[in-house]
């Protein structure tokens, strides 16, 4: 795997939102979350593990996700993260905010003179 492009380091808040979104699709462990992010974004996001795990633990501390140990698809126990009710609410808020931000940025950028 190639070294992640430093330019594509995500802002913390954005990474949190993306993780919540991936978990909204179903509970998963850290490695799979990174894989899913990379896959869905068509290899655009290569999440640095040094950002991923602090982010997951932070989300857990805030009560947005909760973790449990389950056997993974390989049979070995892994720590699975699942979205909580509070986390789902948070994701909704952040998505709305993000879309409003994008729309606003778009309006500014595409404005014809």
């Amino acid at each position, binding site marked *: *795997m190639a*070294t*992640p492009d430093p330019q594509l380091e995500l802002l913390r808040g954005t990474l949190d939102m993306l993780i919540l979104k991936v978990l909204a699709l179903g509970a998963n*462990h*850290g*490695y799979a979350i*990174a894989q899913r992010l990379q896959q869905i974004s068509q290899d655009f996001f290569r999440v*640095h*593990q*040094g*950002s991923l*795990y*602090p*982010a997951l*633990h*932070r989300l*857990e*501390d*805030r*009560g947005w996700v909760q973790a449990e*140990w389950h056997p*993974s698809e*390989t049979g*070995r*126990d*892994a*720590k699975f993260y699942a979205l*909580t*009710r*509070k986390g789902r609410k948070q994701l909704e808020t952040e998505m709305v905010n993000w879309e409003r931000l994008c729309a606003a940025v778009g309006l500014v950028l595409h404005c014809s003179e």
Partner: protein
Amino acid sequence: MHWLRRIWHKARSEKELDAELRFHLDRQIADNLAVGMSAQEARRQALLTLGGLERVKEEVRAAHWETRLENLLRDFHYAFRSLRKDYRFAATTILALSLGIGASTVIFSIIYNGLLRPFPYKNASRLMTFSIHDLQSPDAQGSGRGDRGGFTSAELLTFQQHRAAFEDLIGFMSEEVSFSNGQDTLQVHAARVTPNTFQSLGVEPLLGRSIIPEDASPGQTLVFAMNYRLWQQHFGGDPKIVGSRFSIGGANRTLVAIMPPRFQINPEGSDLWIPTLPNLADSAIPMNAAEPMHLWWPLGHVREGLQTQAVSNDLNLIAQRLAKSFPELYPPRFAVVPQPFADVVVGNFRSTLYALMGAVAILLLITCTNVVNLLLARASTREKEIAVRLTVGATRARLIGQLLFENFLLALAGAVVGCLFAYWGLRGFLLMLPAGTLPAEAAINLNPTVLLFALAMTVFAALLSGVVPTVRSLRGDTWSCLATGNKGTGGHAQGQRLRSALVVAEVALSIVLLVGAGLMIRTLFALTRVDLGFQPSDMLVTEVSFPDGRSRTAQEKKVYFEQGFQRLASLPGVLEATTTASLPPYGGPGSDIELAGQASPAQASVRLDLCSTGFLRTIGLQLLRGRFLSPSEIASAQTVVVIDETFARSFFGESDPIGRKIKFKVLDLIPDAPHNAYFEIIGLVSSIKNRGLRDSPAPQAYLPYTTFATPRATILVRTSTDPRLLENSVHQAIRSVDTRVSLSDTAPLTTYLARFDYASPEFGITAFGAFAGIGLLLASLGIFGLMAYAVALQSHEIGIRLALGARQANILVMTTIKGMRLVLLGIAMGLFGSYFLTRLIASQVWGISPTDAWTFAGVALLVISSGLLACYIPARRASKLDPLVALRYE
């Protein structure tokens, strides 16, 4: 509350984090292998993407800390906001807490610094003194009878030699000496101390060198040490005077040490300390009846771990031997009583302080009850808020954390304000403290240990009282609470009962405090209305001390006073003047008597005063029979005596005492007094108080003041106007007779009475009164809070009643009665408790019974009226409710 669990299971969570990251690493390696990397390359690449296991772990840990900090800040913000919203609640709680902390810190600081740790001396807690207690007649005054705390040189040396219970033993003796630097002469208080004193007490001098036992060896230069205050006042704190020579009582001595301010030893205070070897040859008690001085007062360190009983046994053994060698000095049956040094000074005041400690403990209880009550009230109004937060996903642990944080903030604020109260309160207390009630060495300040203890106690109380309502509100059924739309849950009735019980307890406890304060007020009232037997107003008093503490001869004394009386008589406004041995209402030293031609009664102790002719008119005594001492009888020191009614009644019954003869045994001990002389009774006068305000008069005899010489005397002046106007002229007139005689302040007798006889009860009243007032305020607040809350809860019901036609007055009475039932229950319990508890302060109560009905009734009335007020305000609000608004409410 993940972070809390994380603290408790730190090791486990570390292990979990490691397992989680290893899982990630292994999956990455597996995937790398799957795309065809070599085993080594796959591992290297995987580690690279992960960025090093330890680094990732570090970052995860940092993320946790960040959240913790954020949570803390958020809790703080939340707590602060919710307290600000409820500022009245917050202010009341903080006030209650700070009053409790402040009052208890003040009292415990005084007890700690004044009673438990007053001395700056080495191992001061083991310092003890001892005295001889006459088991038969402790009050007797005569050859070898009565209690005595001083010992002759021979006795002290014997105790020093055979002391098994004491590590060391020092002796001190106070003395008035003239102190001169060649130009000026001062009269100062000196203490002769045994030469081992400074080493035994282990206090280094501020300047100069310590005095060592060798300084008193024969042939050595004579030395002495000086008190800090004298050094500051008369020598401006000049360090160069150390090493100078002074004349002390006629002998030249070199000043070698200035002692620090807290060094004292002698409870009467001393300006100089003179190391002196007790002289073995000196075995008699050269006791001057008026001044039981020139005796050594013993003081020493008791051996570690020794019980008082063992010390007592050891001392009694030595004393029994001494009693054989000096039978004339010892009563037939006696015991040597060891006593902690602090007790000598503190004495009776100890019981006042302990009573105050009890009062402050009760006040602290009221405070805590009040705070619990307030928190309960607040918790019950917040049940809905808590229920809402629970349903939106807040964890219970986190809610408890937040609520506790709020209580913690309250406690902290209470602690800070409490410290301020304690600081100012202590200053106030020290100003009020009667003179001479605590050792001069004691440095009373806010004691950090005490402060911390009070803080810990109240913070603990606040947190504990916070947990109960918090847990209770969390246990409540969330759904029913939300569904009913009530402000609280079904736990109401139970909560109200608990709060009612707390209010009853508060009222009962404040009754106890109020009864204590009431009894003290009645005591002072009784004391100020005591009939002294004479009129104390319009009298001026001065105490004179003759130079070098050596009594002048009776003849010299006569010249001095005659000149004095002449000068006083020429002052306008002075009606009459006299001299006495001591200040009224004290009637001079005691003496045993023998009656001529009559078997001596077993208990024949009388008071002996030394007067001039003016005494009768100055005091305003009634002459009942015969005549008073005439000027010629005084001038020639005739052996005649005037007795009072009590005397006549005690020893002569109904028969006429005039012409009978009495021998005063104490005179035999006084060198220049007539020995074995019988005094003829020439007059009978009315009785006045002669044992202080509290005790009934003892038999009193008045002798010519020229009978023998004394080191001190009192001058009393009867004035025709306000005595304060004459203070200066009288003082100057007496001073002009002989400037070497030192005078105390010239002041009205009533001022002296206030300072020595009323100060202690006044102090008790102010302190007890303040605590009782705070207690009553808190209890009233408790009643008010409970009633206001009850009215808020019942506004619906009240609205219905009003709508159905109940009159406002009915509602008012109904609500008030409800509150007053609690108040009355509290009063009943409080009075019942006081009935037993007031016995503990019986020693402070005088002139009335400790269960004085008037006090109890007055206190009950006071609490009923403040309870009525506290109930009336919420009840009035209830009666003014608009039924429509009340029904629509909620």
